[in-house]
């Protein structure tokens, strides 16, 4: 028995593999999903998604989104996702600073709410990446 995990972002399908268990960062706390879990639909918070496969645990940083557990298939729909090993701590820090600066500027200029939202997403995702990376070390 194994789980099938797929993670999809607007740009591409990030992840599609069979795994042993998954920890989802939902809005009401972390949920550990093992094979045979009851069908579930949930909101995801920005955070760390842990994947266990053959005894090793991988972590992915994900942004807000939705997750659906149906049978033994977990579908994660999110705005952004990245494997923690691929995170460059320096780049994430820079990205966060840039996004926060842009956000502050945009707020001062009273920008379009949509642009603000986009910048917030960027800043949030950068923070999540940083946190996840630090925890890993």
């Amino acid at each position, binding site marked *: 028995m194994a789980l099938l995990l797929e993670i999809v972002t607007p740009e591409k399908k990030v992840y599609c593999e069979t795994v042993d268990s998954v920890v989802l960062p939902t809005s009401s706390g972390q949920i550990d999903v093992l094979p045979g879990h009851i069908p579930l639909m949930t909101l995801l918070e920005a955070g760390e998604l842990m994947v266990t496969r053959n005894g090793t645990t991988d972590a992915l940083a994900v942004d807000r989104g939705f997750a659906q557990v149906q049978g033994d*298939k977990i579908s994660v729909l999110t705005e952004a996702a990245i494997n923690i090993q691929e995170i460059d701590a320096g780049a994430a820090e820079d990205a966060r600073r840039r996004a926060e600066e842009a956000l502050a500027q945009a707020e001062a200029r009273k920008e379009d709410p949509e642009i603000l939202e986009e910048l917030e997403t960027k800043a949030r995702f950068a923070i999540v990446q940083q946190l996840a990376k630090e925890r890993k070390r």
Partner: protein
Amino acid sequence: MANLRDIQRRIKSVKNTGKITRAMQLVAASKMKKAQDQAVASRPYAQLMAEIVSGLFRHLSVEELAAVQSPIFEKREVKKRGILLLSTDKGLCGSLNANLFRALAEIDREKAAFVTVGRKATQFVSRSRRNLLADFSVSDHVLFSELRPVVDFLLNAYYEGEIDTIEVLYTQFINNLKQEAVLINLVPMIGLDDLIQAIIGVQDYTEKAPIENDEREIRFEPSAKEILDAIIPLFISREIYHKVLEAKASEHSARMVAMKTATDNAGELCDSLTLKFNKARQAAITQEIQEISAASAS
């Protein structure tokens, strides 16, 4: 010989036109690649979103939906259909826009109001004196945020009762040679099955996890209402964005193909004109020789 010079001038002009269409073909080809990649890459997202939404609807009873009390799920009498028309800004893309407008002509004009994206659509709707609510334009490399005003406008018009449905008429990209004008219903979200099937049914080129059947009662965390509130606006705007990407991919493919045909035709025309030119030249020389020999013989 005036005739010779005429042919020569035509050859020159055909060659020049060929060069222009060739340049346009190359530009369209590079844009096409990008637009197609973008459209195809965003398909899995649209499909998974559609799956989740359809999952939600399958597991919610009518009472639960009614409890949400959102006009998006209310079926009301359709007096005015709201149609979002996605066309190109520029012409020279074969029959793409013509096909789109043929599909549009089938819609009862008294019962529809239009919102257009793209100059060609704006022109067509206003020239045929249909009811144009608003027109928007987007850049060639569309960003999600560019469509925000479009989606907001449509939803506001819907909430205020100005229009009673939100439908999208666009060109679905199938392959380089085939694009189809398609009309989909987006709002109100009743009888979504057709829409979901249409979205999921589109073939995509990425690996796909099989849809699992699970008859057990589904759990919603934190609650179905909260998930609905979060996903529905996102679904509508993402869906419209995705359609714009498909329309862009279609546009550039159609233009590429049209320009390629034009270049090929220019080449053929040039060949046949050259043949004609050579024949005329040959005839002129022969005639001159004949005249000279006739003159020397006498």
